[in-house]
């Protein structure tokens, strides 16, 4: 039993490292070859985990092979447009200037119900509101609405806006993050002062504190239950 336990831990650690090396992508945004590899890695790790008759290396090698294949293919896709087109395909325009490109829709085997469903999921109820629709290589549809149907932006209103900065997390679960504090340009006494203004005595009593995009300090105190660790 301990053997299975240790093997599972080893393979788990390996899969985490491999997924980390493969890079950050949501499943919905993956290219087909990336999705295939993710599914295969999960399956390959499972068999040697439970079957102690299979040497651990027989699980490690295929996983490392897939990692190598994925890294090399994605690197070549980055460097070569031709290679990328072969492996990932290219985006297809299915609605052009408000007209459905029937040849593309037929070639891609998309029926009208699927297309309308995709439009509705993007909050476009009418086909007549769409200027362009592009089927991306990851299967998602990008909609560019007609000018008169798009959302209003601040530029349209002629409103002057301040440029926004990224929010900076300063405290998580009672621990100050020094790297982020340095990035914010403030120091620890300033943080303590801000916390005290929010009725929080010490850094350890803060559950979460951050500097917002408009440089305002926000903090939340730990409640009693989480302080006691209960």
């Amino acid at each position: 039993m301990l053997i299975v336990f240790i093997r599972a831990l080893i393979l788990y650690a390996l899969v985490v490292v491999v997924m980390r090396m493969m890079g950050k992508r949501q499943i919905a945004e993956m290219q087909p070859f990336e999705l295939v590899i993710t599914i295969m890695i999960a399956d390959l790790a499972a068999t040697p985990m439970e079957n102690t008759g299979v040497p651990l290396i027989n699980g490690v090698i295929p996983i490392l092979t897939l990692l190598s294949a994925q890294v090399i293919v994605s690197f070549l896709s980055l460097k070569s447009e031709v290679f990328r087109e072969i492996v990932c395909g290219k985006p297809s325009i299915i609605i052009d200037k408000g007209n459905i490109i029937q040849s593309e829709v037929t070639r891609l085997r998309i029926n009208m119900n699927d297309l309308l469903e995709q439009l509705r999921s993007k909050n476009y109820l009418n086909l007549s509101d769409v200027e362009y629709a592009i089927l991306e290589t990851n299967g998602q549809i990008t909609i560019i609405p007609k000018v008169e149907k798009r959302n209003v932006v601040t530029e349209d209103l002629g409103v002057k806006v301040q440029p926004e900065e990224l929010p900076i997390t300063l405290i998580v679960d009672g621990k100050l993050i020094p790297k982020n504090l340095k990035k914010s340009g403030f120091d620890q006494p300033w943080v303590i002062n801000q916390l005290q203004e929010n009725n929080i005595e010490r850094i350890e009593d803060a559950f979460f504190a951050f500097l917002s995009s408009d440089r305002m300090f926000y903090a939340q105190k730990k409640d009693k239950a989480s302080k006691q660790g209960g």
Partner: protein
Amino acid sequence: MKVVIATILILITFFAVALYMEQYVNQSAEILTSELEKLEQAIEKEEWKEVRQHMENTAQGWGETKKVWLTFLEHNEIDKIDIVFARLQSYVGSEENVEALSSTAELKFLLQHIVEKQGFRLTNVL
């Protein structure tokens, strides 16, 4: 870029180790097979003292080889060899030459089978 370089290094290391391990399996199987042949000859001559000596050498050789083979070969293949080995030791102990010869032939076949199965061939890939 670091990940690409790390990946290429992993691949190079893997190919080097894979080639080495294939060579190791071939060599160690050859050594064991030649020990088994000496054992067979001694059994045919019914020189049981020599048989026991060769048996001991073969068992020692197999013990050392097994430790390495277990890290990358299917365990059930190793288990089969262990079973036949145990049987052979019993036949040698009771000086039954026909059964002992049959067991050595079985062992030689199993070793050869492992070498063929591990080899980088199209039939194994497919």
